[in-house]
């Protein structure tokens, strides 16, 4: 039981990191990234390959996964910088599918559809599986706290205000002298790096990864987490991730409630409920359960009073 709860906790942590990554790009800066699954996969594969084939320590693998996904995000953002948001939506979605095709086909590097197994985890095999789950949960919580604190400082500081200004009106932000293009690149790359971090940790926790684990479906899980928690809000993203995992775990019991459903049908019910929840959240609570606080000029220390209204 403790082991089960710890594994749920780790899953919440992974989803929370993903939601935070999307939050930097979408919640703060207004750049859509539907290719989340792709960057998640890049981080997982980079770290897994570095620590299995490359025999490197786990920490180095995680850092590499993070950098690798971030660099890919930077490249994609640089290519698409001049394009409108709707093009970015299509391209990022296409990018994640192409990454999955690559993972499936380049067997020499990724072992193809079989996936990579025996990815090392911290002290795995030396302690009991329950202790391993608890240890990983502890690592996850520390990573999350560090990331949330860093992102909150970033979001509430001048940098975050500039990003929000771009989200709300990029022309005004440019007129105010903000380097809109550079900030967009940085925000997108930072977000992608966090997605890579989530992927790397996911691989080390699961000890096994395969291309089928990185389907675009996970994108709607994370957008549900983010929308429920409130876009632009870092703690909200963590709460939203917990909510999504509870919904996913909760729908496992559908099988007991309605006997006679096949496994495929139960899985279908689960995806339907996530999809419906996301639609309802977007429709009725687009600002989330914890709406973003509008900063007043006194709080950010602007010289003249003047309230920003939305």
């Amino acid at each position, binding site marked *: 039981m403790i082991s089960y709860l710890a594994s749920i906790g780790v899953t919440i942590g992974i989803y929370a990191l993903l939601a935070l990554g999307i939050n930097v790009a979408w919640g703060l800066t*207004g750049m859509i990234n539907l290719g989340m699954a792709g960057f998640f996969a890049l981080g997982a594969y980079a770290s897994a390959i570095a620590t299995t084939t490359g025999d490197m320590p786990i920490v180095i693998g995680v850092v590499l996964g993070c950098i690798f996904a971030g660099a890919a995000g930077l490249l994609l953002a640089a290519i698409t910088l001049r394009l409108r948001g709707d093009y970015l939506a299509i391209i990022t979605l296409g990018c994640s599918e*192409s990454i999955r*095709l690559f993972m499936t086909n380049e067997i020499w590097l990724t072992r193809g559809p079989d996936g990579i197994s025996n990815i090392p985890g911290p002290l795995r095999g030396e302690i009991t599986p329950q202790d391993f789950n608890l240890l990983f949960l502890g690592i996850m919580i520390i990573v999350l706290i560090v990331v949330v604190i860093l992102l909150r400082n970033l979001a509430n500081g001048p940098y975050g205000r500039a990003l929000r200004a771009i989200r709300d009106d990029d022309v005004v932000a440019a007129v105010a002298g903000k380097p809109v293009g550079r900030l967009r690149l940085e925000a997108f790359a930072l977000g992608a790096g966090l997605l890579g971090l989530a992927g790397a940790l996911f691989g080390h926790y699961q000890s096994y990864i395969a291309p089928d684990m990185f389907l675009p479906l996970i994108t709607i899980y994370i*957008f549900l987490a983010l929308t429920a928690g409130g876009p632009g809000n870092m703690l909200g993203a963590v709460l939203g991730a917990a909510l999504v995992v509870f919904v996913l775990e909760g729908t496992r019991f559908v099988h007991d409630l309605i006997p006679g459903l096949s496994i495929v049908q139960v899985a279908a019910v689960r995806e*339907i409920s996530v999809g419906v929840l996301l639609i309802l959240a977007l*429709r009725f609570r687009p600002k989330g359960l914890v709406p973003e606080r509008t900063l007043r000029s006194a709080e950010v220390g602007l010289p003249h009073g003047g309230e920003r209204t939305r």
Partner: protein
Amino acid sequence: MELIPQLLVNGVLYGSLLALPAIGFTMIFAVLRFPNFAVASIATLGAFAGWVANVPMGLPILLAVVAAFVIAGIVGVLTDDLVLRPMRPHGALTTAIASIALTVVLENIIRFGFGNDLRGYDLPIVRDWRFLDIRVGPQQFENLVLACLIMVILFVFLRYGRFGKAMRAVADNPQLAALKGIPSGTVTRLAMFIAMGLVGVGGILQGLGTAIDPLTGFRFILSIFAAAVVGGLGSIPGAVLGAFVVGIGQELSLVVLDPTYKSAVGFLAILVVLIFRPEGLLGEKRQ
């Protein structure tokens, strides 16, 4: 090499399959200005609606195609009214995200009803035609003729009918169209019906060549986007041209690439076009 002509022919055949859903996707974009990712599940829905008409009900393929058009069109309009229309004031990107959620819901409703098994249509088994070493399946050829016929009807309907004019007016400037007394709600619904109907037909035509499962539309979607973006989002002739460019490009890529990379070629085509000509081959420059 006989290989290249064969691949060219295959590319034209595949392009004709892509053209219909690409027209649908681009039409919705032209009128409503958002990428509607629900086309993935609507294509699957068309394929399954046609399968129900063809296999359990025993209707001929032509009627199955009609069933695919009508069911996909109706479900497209209803789900848009119910789910996406109220989302539009929140912005194009929020609507796009909602359309992904919608596509997941529809796909899983199909999965709930039909399961994950592959299903084939009731088709006579016929030998491929051969012309000078080029092989063409009679069914593929029928699909090509059917797709071209539908495109011609659509072109005449949109170019010379009152609806086409009204749709272009709404696409161009909804406020002005409303001032002129064009019922933009009705025009939007009819455009959505036709667009999703075409997507449904695209789904069944794609399924006729192979077999269908709940992911049929999803596998196809990258190529559909590629066709629409390469041609210029919002341009119907562009979508047709883009479909043939992407179709032929994907087939020709087999000379150098593994077949599993076929749909990645579509993504590559999007990138190349957007870097060098962001408005697409036939798209207009917009601010």
